[in-house]
């Protein structure tokens, strides 16, 4: 109830924040060094992948641990096609085809699952993609990966590529936001709130989940294509469990269901991994501590801090008169942070 009432105000705030962020982002290449722009591009690519997970986690309440697998299948499609002399159109067609196929497999396998079972199903499928890329050495190059891929000439330069990724990120975010606000998105959220009620109202829950996975997978595929372009290389590590898990952690860190949560999460994780690691040898410890601190003090993620504070202030005033219901253990924190 509060969610619907508060939506207008918080949406305007988010939109303003997004505009400020875009302005800052456009100015970035003129301010910082070449290398830092490269890291910024990597952050944006990861943010797109995190957005695809966030779409499922925020709207359907299902956290995936296998989305890097979808991204990697798109990436391998692109890389393979590029190395076999296909033009840009052909490369994107193959990448797109593989994305659709893998998203469909992900969707059809997991559409009747829930919570932890969805997590396990996506994890398993992600591992299948990883295993295939590892084993099918004649096609994927195995552990050695595929090198020698080049970006399209339109954004061959590091800063043009940055702008391309930035545009893609903004487009994807707006698209995901629009879908989330559409009747389709509202239905997804009703499924998140109560699957049995949605079913009794006549919704085909499994089909909606499949549809959501196809959309989410498409976004992951876009991330996969740009990930290959950003490092001009692909290896099984691109589809590994670690990659999927880190992307999911980015979502949790940034705030499940928040618009810019994926970007915030990606910035923190990659900032530590790529920049802080040059100065502090034990950067994984720092990353772990950040996770712990966020989970304890900002359970709705960094992007959800503002809402947490508002809730807390209001809650403190009202607590005695109208105690807030405790969150039922079954829904864990997954469903908690979304609006």
């Amino acid at each position, binding site marked *: 109830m509060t969610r619907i009432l508060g939506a207008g105000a918080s949406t305007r705030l988010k939109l303003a924040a997004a505009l400020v962020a875009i302005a800052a982002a456009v100015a970035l290449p003129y301010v910082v*060094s*070449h*290398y830092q722009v*490269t*890291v910024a591009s*990597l952050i944006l690519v990861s943010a797109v992948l995190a957005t695809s997970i966030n779409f499922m986690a925020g709207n359907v309440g299902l956290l995936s641990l296998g989305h890097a697998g979808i991204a990697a299948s798109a990436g391998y499609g692109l890389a393979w096609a590029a190395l076999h002399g296909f033009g840009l159109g052909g490369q994107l067609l193959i990448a797109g085809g593989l994305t659709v196929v893998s998203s469909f497999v992900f969707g059809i396998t997991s559409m009747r699952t829930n919570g932890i079972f969805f997590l396990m199903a996506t994890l398993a499928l992600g591992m299948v993609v990883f295993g295939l890329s*590892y*084993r099918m*050495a*004649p096609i994927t190059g*195995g*552990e*050695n*990966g595929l*090198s*020698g891929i080049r970006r399209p000439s339109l954004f061959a330069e590091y800063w043009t590529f940055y702008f391309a990724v930035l545009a893609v990120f903004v487009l994807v975010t707006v698209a995901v936001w629009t879908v989330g606000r559409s009747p389709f998105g509202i239905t997804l959220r009703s499924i998140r709130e109560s699957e049995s009620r949605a079913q009794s109202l006549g919704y085909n829950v499994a089909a909606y989940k499949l549809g959501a996975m196809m959309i989410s997978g498409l976004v992951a595929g876009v991330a996969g294509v740009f*990930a290959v372009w950003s*490092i*001009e*290389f692909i*290896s*099984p*590590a*691109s589809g590994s469990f*670690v990659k999927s898990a880190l992307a999911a952690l980015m979502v949790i860190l940034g705030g499940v269901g928040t618009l810019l949560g994926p970007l915030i999460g990606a910035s923190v994780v990659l900032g530590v*991994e*790529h920049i802080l*690691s*040059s*100065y*502090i*040898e*034990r*950067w*994984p*410890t*720092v990353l772990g*501590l950040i996770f*712990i*601190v966020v989970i*304890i*003090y900002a*359970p709705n993620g960094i992007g959800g801090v503002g809402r947490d504070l508002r*809730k*807390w202030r209001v*809650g*403190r005033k009202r*607590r005695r008169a109208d105690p*807030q219901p*405790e*969150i039922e253990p079954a829904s864990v*924190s997954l469903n*908690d942070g979304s609006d």
Partner: protein
Amino acid sequence: MTFSNSKWKRSWIGITSGLALALIVSACAPGGASEATTDATTTESKTEEAGSKTEEATSGQAVGSETAAPADPTVIKVGFLSPVTGPIAAIGIEMKQGWELYWEEHGTTAGNFVVETVYEDDGGNPDTALSKAKRLVEDEKVDVVVGPLAANTALAVSDYLIQQGVPNFHPVTAADDITQRNKNPLVIRVGAMSGSQPNYVAGQWAYDQGYRKAITLCSDYAFGWENCGGFVRTFTAAGGEIVNQLWNPLGTPDFSSYATQIASSGADLAFIGSSGGSDGVNFLRAYEDFGLADTIDILGNCCLLDQSTLSEMGDVAEGLHSVTYYAEGLDTPSMRTFHELYDSEYGGLPSLYVANSYVTAGVFSEALTTIEGNEIDPEGLVSAARSVNLEDTVFGPRTIDEWNQPVGNVYITKVEKRDDGKYWNVVEETFEDVGQFWNFDPDEILAGPPYDRTNTGQQ
């Protein structure tokens, strides 16, 4: 999560975790590492100063080199990429030790140059490795990149460095293709032999010893495929028979099923192409538990019985044979110096990975002394390194072929117990001047696909 906790409790938790964070962060900035990186990040105008500071910091025992340095040597900046965090950190750290050790022994002056190293951690991840390589090239303006370790990170980084025209020295990475199908005048492998190279010797030696039926167990990824590929090609070419090939996934915790298959295979030799690390230790455990010693002979690759894990294996390893290009029990002057140096600095016996970087630093230093003037031409540096002829490295004599791949000794080694109770690999037999194609025609090998589970080198 609700906010029903009392305010007091919250602030208490806040203070403690804040303190813990501060402690950990301050403890996390170890002297050496942060010093090197801080030095490296000073602005261009301070490069000279930073260079001499690094020299002071790293030359340590070799104080003399500082006074002997020419008046105005040119600083050559080396970016050293290795995974000192993540799943392969143990090897990454040893790799870094070898590089540091060399400059401590010899000082950082080589010819007209002073070597300044910027260390970076790639976490064993290609994305990170590439972005770190970009940082080294674009922000640090390094003249050469040494590393990284894992094959996928190495190939991703090489591809980028070639585009940037920056030479790339590989100390440890064994992927065949770096100096075969992806050969490039800017990329040179200095320390390690390629995945298949020493194992061509293994197959030939096994046949000559009278073995006729072999079973193989190799790691199920490129390195293992290449190891087995080398062994199988020469063993079957000589007339031996491969009764079965087993492939264990990287990080196999339990080798029981492989041990029973090996025991019941009817073969008279098992070739084990291990990736080293915990895989080697776990295999040896199963080898002991299932009493394989009584049923079959074992021949390990470079890494199964390497010093990095040999001490964890204990008595069971004694007497086992390996085929490798590094035997820490080799009795040469340079090996003795290497042992003393490593023992005084880190304690214990140096592993293959330390040796790889140590030799890379040696070749690099030697190449710099042959360059006249203060200009470094990227391809010139690599070709200078290629022409270095080292008579006495810890690997024995070494040269580098026209593919930028080392040619040198391959040893058949045996694990023996030293007087001090430690185990080491001593040389039983030496094969000299082993090249990456053994005695095959390079075109014939390159005409086929790279080794994998379907192309196992079977003749």
